[in-house]
């Protein structure tokens, strides 16, 4: 600390605590609402202490969905979200790490061309090319399938960059030693490079898992069957319009279920998360 100013310390703590309270307020109200009955919420103002219907609401949405909106069980949706998040995270890491390995450790014709080709995909976020991409996926017969949900999203310029940056910092001596010992490129990749990349892989995994879990526009377009909805889409489908018709207690229980897994990943894997976030953007 540069100097000792008591009032400044108190101010800092006060601002931080106020910030945390404001940021946490929606989450708290959401949780409270998820433990009430619909009638209790409609009786304005709703109580601000948790009610007694926690189990009733959560088991209702997990097993059967809502009454007035989408009636698909949220348990199934969470499974879909999990499959989507894992497939995107693992897929992105897998295809990016081998692509950067090729770009860094080989010299071959068109190397730079391929590198730039991956690079420019940064400039084509899915939102910009939704309709033609949707048509491509529809033509390939991938609507309402896990492949259609995940495959179009697994190309990743950022992950390729991250691994490229990392491989460039790996000492030359390692590859040299591997070659002298007679190891081929694949052996070197599996036994030397992959173990060294663990930290980067963990960091990327956290970021991409959240990215995959939170996808919205893409699953909104390509899932028309309730059994393929992801949790985030399920919430949207439960809101039927009109405050009195929407079963807010069930919507809020689903919202908690939708945000809990990625929030836990962020909080429990905080170290990797911070590293991944800061590095993927450089």
């Amino acid at each position, binding site marked *: 600390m540069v100097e000792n*100013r008591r009032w400044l310390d108190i101010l800092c703590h006060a601002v931080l605590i106020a910030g945390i309270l404001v940021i946490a307020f929606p989450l708290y109200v959401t949780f409270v609402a998820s433990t009430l009955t619909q009638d209790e919420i409609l009786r*304005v103002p709703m109580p601000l202490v948790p009610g007694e219907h926690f189990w009733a609401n959560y088991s209702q949405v997990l097993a059967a969905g809502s009454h007035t909106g989408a009636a698909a069980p949220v348990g199934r949706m969470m499974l879909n979200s999990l499959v989507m998040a894992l497939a995107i995270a693992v897929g992105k890491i897998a295809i990016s790490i081998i692509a950067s390995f090729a770009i860094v450790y080989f010299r071959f014709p068109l190397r730079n061309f391929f590198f730039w080709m991956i690079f420019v995909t940064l400039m084509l976020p899915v939102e910009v090319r939704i309709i*033609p991409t949707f048509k491509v996926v529809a033509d390939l017969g991938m609507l309402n399938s896990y492949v259609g949900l995940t495959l179009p999203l697994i190309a990743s310029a950022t992950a390729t960059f991250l691994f490229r940056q990392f491989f460039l910092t790996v000492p030359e001596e390692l590859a040299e030693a591997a070659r002298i010992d007679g190891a081929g490129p694949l052996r070197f990749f599996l036994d030397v490079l992959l173990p060294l990349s663990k930290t980067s892989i963990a960091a990327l995994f956290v970021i991409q898992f959240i990215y995959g879990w939170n996808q919205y526009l893409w699953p909104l377009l390509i899932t028309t069957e309730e059994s393929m909805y992801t949790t985030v889409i399920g919430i949207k489908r439960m809101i039927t319009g009109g405050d009195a018709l929407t079963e807010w207690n069930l919507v809020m229980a689903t919202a908690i279920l*939708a945000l809990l897994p990625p*929030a836990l990943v962020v909080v429990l894997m905080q170290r990797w998360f911070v590293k991944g976030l800061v590095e993927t953007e450089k």
Partner: protein
Amino acid sequence: MEKRVVFRSAWLPYALLAPQIAVTLVFFFWPAVQAIWYSFQLQDAFGERTQFVGLANFAALFRDANYLHSFGITALFSALVAGCGIGIALLLATMANRVIRGALGYRTLLIWPYAVAPAVAGVLWAFLFAPSVGIITYALRRAGYNWDWVLQADQAMALVVIASVWKQISYNFLFFLAGLQSIPRSLIEAAAIDGAGPMRRFWTIVFPLLSPTTFFLLVVNIVYAFFDTFGVIDATTQGGPAGATQILIYKVYYDGVKAADLGGSSAQSVVLMAIVIALTAIQFRFVERKVQY
């Protein structure tokens, strides 16, 4: 920077690149080319015949008052989201950088909204502000303020801005905190010895030294407001009332999916692509050179 030691193989590098390139070609380049192609076409009402119309879709777009209005809305929306998000995050990060006790705890409690999907963030805030049952609506009414974002344009805008900023603060916060922690202690101490107070030190030393981070976050937040906030808007206002929160990306979706105007929607996609390319180019040009002071 290049490796001196490399492996040799005529086929292996291509095989390693193949999955990434295949996905890129099928799901990125091919649709992008199609978007450009459709943007020069006009489809009849039944989708049976298409006709090449050159730049007519673009001309129609920029004559369309709704589209120009949507441009204005997007500009306002992204300025508000970036401005508020960066300002609040900078305040919190500066405070968090000063405290010693409980720093990690504060960080943990501030970063979790990053994990919340934009659509879920929208639903959370829409519930708080819901016209009849919302708890904040109730408080506002008690204070004599008539709140109903379903009908009032500026209130709908406020709602989507609040939800979008709320989700993005944690991201900005982490980058500012990293930036603040990399500022050499000696500079701050030297200024303190020269008698500069905390405010003066912040504005003359810390803030200028943070300018690369601030600039980077500005670009990222604008991109976020342009594209990622689709979920916030679709889950809350759906562009309403009367287009008051219809940002460009929502209009692409609405015109293409709901109104099935392929040519017009594709032309909008192409305009958006141009904007992303410009933003990315700006970001790389300046972030690479680390603009500052």
